[in-house]
């Protein structure tokens, strides 16, 4: 089933009106949306305030991680609970290459290299580890694959806790943020006379990065390789019969997914605090990303972004804006409890009633909204409503 399509179809009126390139550009829906998007972005950037920018930045990093999981589990159908293993690998690669050198004996190692080295390296090393782990893991299917990826998380925790020179051991270590010479995101100085806050700099940095990753994933999935991934998901035996090299397809998905997870991991550790213990890369976090994937909608780029907003952004927002006032009486109901109940409860509700996730919900809404205009649109020849498919795109 295809995802939300955003074809750049021009909506030039048929007939004899001049259809210049420029006019086609201006009237096309995609461009209009883009312009609005940029306008909103600028507004948020200027007026959003540190609170909102923090929530949005965390959501964007989570979205990159969710996209990586989508590549593996959403498009290729390989269940994985082990995303935090690859995120950790990426993060510690970034820290080892880009982090500060040790100041006291026993401090972890760092080489203070620039972001142009440590960020891509984080992805590449994670991808290499994925290539190593892949052949063994990909022999398995369904539940078995899920449990092996779960095992990866615990093996990762064990390795991270013991590799003290790289990870700082159980006490944790500092992770590098983007910095260029004297200027760093963590303590920004005025650039061209303009002083921006840390969160604003990250917002400027992360938005194009997320857009790049999203576009990349979107395009890969429409390419030959992407169609091979989806064929593997939909019917493995059938795919083999029509000539898809199963091993190559699965490995490709695994490596791409690990690459993106590594980059997401490096950013996840760097922002907002720049400090993390090995316990950060635990099963609970991995399950949150799985939840983001499923709640947002599998096999959909927008779905991953929305899912990340729901699972990571929403609880932060609830907490930030003190929906429930803090107090210290012993049986108080706090925002932490509310987040957990909301999270668990809404997962159940989504899985029960809208398995295609938020995207599925939006599509249904769009179909429903279609009935309010031109009566011949959205209906078949006999006048019946053509509904979006309700079947989940993900089969195992």
């Amino acid at each position, binding site marked *: 089933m295809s995802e939300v399509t955003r074809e750049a179809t021009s909506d030039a009126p048929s007939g004899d009106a001049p259809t210049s390139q420029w006019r086609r550009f201006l009237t096309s829906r995609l461009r209009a*949306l883009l312009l609005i998007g940029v306008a*909103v972005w600028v507004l948020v950037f200027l*007026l959003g305030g540190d609170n909102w920018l923090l*929530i949005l930045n965390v959501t964007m990093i989570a979205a990159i991680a969710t996209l990586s999981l989508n590549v593996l589990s959403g498009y290729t159908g390989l269940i994985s609970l082990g995303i935090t293993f690859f995120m950790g690998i990426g993060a510690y690669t970034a820290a080892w290459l880009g982090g500060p050198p040790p100041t006291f004996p026993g401090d972890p190692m760092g080489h203070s290299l620039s972001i142009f080295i440590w960020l891509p390296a984080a992805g590449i090393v994670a991808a290499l580890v994925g290539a190593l782990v892949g052949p063994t893991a990909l022999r398995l299917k369904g539940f078995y694959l899920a449990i092996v990826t779960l095992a990866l998380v615990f093996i990762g925790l064990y390795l991270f806790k013991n590799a003290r020179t790289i990870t700082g051991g159980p006490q*944790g270590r500092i992770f590098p943020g983007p910095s260029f010479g004297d200027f760093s995101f*963590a303590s920004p100085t005025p650039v061209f006379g303009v002083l921006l806050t840390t969160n604003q700099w990250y917002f400027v940095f992360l938005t194009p990065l997320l857009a790049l990753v999203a576009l990349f994933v979107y395009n890969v999935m429409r390419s030959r390789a992407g169609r091979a991934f989806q064929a593997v998901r939909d019917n493995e035996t059938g795919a083999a019969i029509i000539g898809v090299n199963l091993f190559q397809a699965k490995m490709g998905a695994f490596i791409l997914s690990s690459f993106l997870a590594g980059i997401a991991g490096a950013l996840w550790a760097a922002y907002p605090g720049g400090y993390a213990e090995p316990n950060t890369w635990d099963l609970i976090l991995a399950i949150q990303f799985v939840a983001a994937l499923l709640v947002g909608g599998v096999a959909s780029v927008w779905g991953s972004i929305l899912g990340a907003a729901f699972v990571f952004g929403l609880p932060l927002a609830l907490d930030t804006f003190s929906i429930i006032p*803090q107090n210290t009486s012993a049986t108080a109901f706090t925002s932490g409890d509310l987040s957990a109940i909301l999270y668990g409860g809404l997962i159940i509700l989504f899985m029960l009633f809208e398995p295609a996730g938020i995207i599925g919900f939006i599509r249904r809404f769009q179909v429903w909204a279609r009935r309010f205009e031109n009566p011949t649109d959205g209906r078949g020849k006999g006048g019946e409503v053509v509904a979006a498919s309700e079947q989940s795109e993900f089969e195992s």
Partner: protein
Amino acid sequence: MAIRPRLRTSIGVLSCLAILGVILAGCGVNNGGGSLKNDFGVNTSAKTISLGILTPLSGPVAAPIGIPITKGIETYFDAVNASGGIDGYKVKLVEKDTQYNPQLEVSAYQQIKNQVAMFAESLGTPTTQAIVPLTNNDHVLVNAATLDSYLAREPYMVLIGTPYRLQVENAFDYVVKKLGVQHPKTGIIYQDDGYGQDGLTGYKEAVSYYGLDNVGEATYEATDTTFTAQAAQLKASGAQYVFLTAIPTAAAGIIGTAHAIGYDPHWLLQSPAYANGLLQVKGLNQLLEAEAWVMGQGATWGDTSVPGMAEMLNNIQKYAPSQQPDGYFEFGYTEAKVTYAILKKAFDNGDVTRAGLLKAFNSLQNVDVGGLYPTLHYGTAPNQRVPSRDSTVYAIDPTVPGNLKSLSGDFTGGAAAASQF
């Protein structure tokens, strides 16, 4: 046309987002005039000064530790405000729930940092570590409610109390110097995280300083449910004194399991390893009374000969009458006293800006907390930033309020005094 509703919906959604963003833009800071220099968290017209609190108010750490400490701080400042505040300025507390999660702590910090002059509390080691780089950049003082000694190296961290590492060293000072046991066989069981590491560091220093016969070191994970292996290992090693850098559930499991397999050494417990709830377990309470000593600090609850204790109990009656005896409450109350001392000095200097508060803190030297804890010493070098190196060894005694009875009185052992940070 089929596209319009989608376009409409998209425009609608995006516009709403934009409007939301505008509405929720951060609020500014009220800065009045006057001769008092201030930048954040001080409202000169309403005469209030705001302090931040970052602590778990929900989750497993909240009820035993997070909430009592916060209550201690609240009670102290309730009393201060009732008697007119600091130089006429009332103290307001801005509390955020971190759920003991470093990411939430950072987010909470970012939210309120511009609303407060300094932080009256930041609970937990991984959580506080997460905001250290941020506080260094923002030049904000934080009163750190954690006993991890690494934080002594940070210029904006205010520590209270003896770090875990030194607790271990003082424990063995008691065994060797006060009880007179020469070259005892010793061991340690520690949790496999930063907390455990700190205990282990202290243990290793104690081993070399006091000439202990180190026969066993074992570790456990916070989620472990069986401790037979660790107990059996220590039993086979024959250790007579075993230190536990653990959480209460693990400590209970270790002591109970060890007894079950016939191993009853003297157990020395790190201060967080004991909780009053352990006394409810059938059979465990006798073991604890007979074999376990808890490291701690602070005046015995209810000892009104100590002026600070009398004052605290008095304030509890007025502002928190249902408060049960709780060492963490006492810790929070003392922490608030140190915060008060910093603020008072800054007000006396006429400068409650961030820089002014730092200056006040660095020039503090000694803070008298009325005997609740021994006089706390501060300074600027890492070694001086550890305000106390003393401990008390307590026995567990259910007949005493707070269930802890001092065995040793307060003292600073040789190793603790000499330890370098």
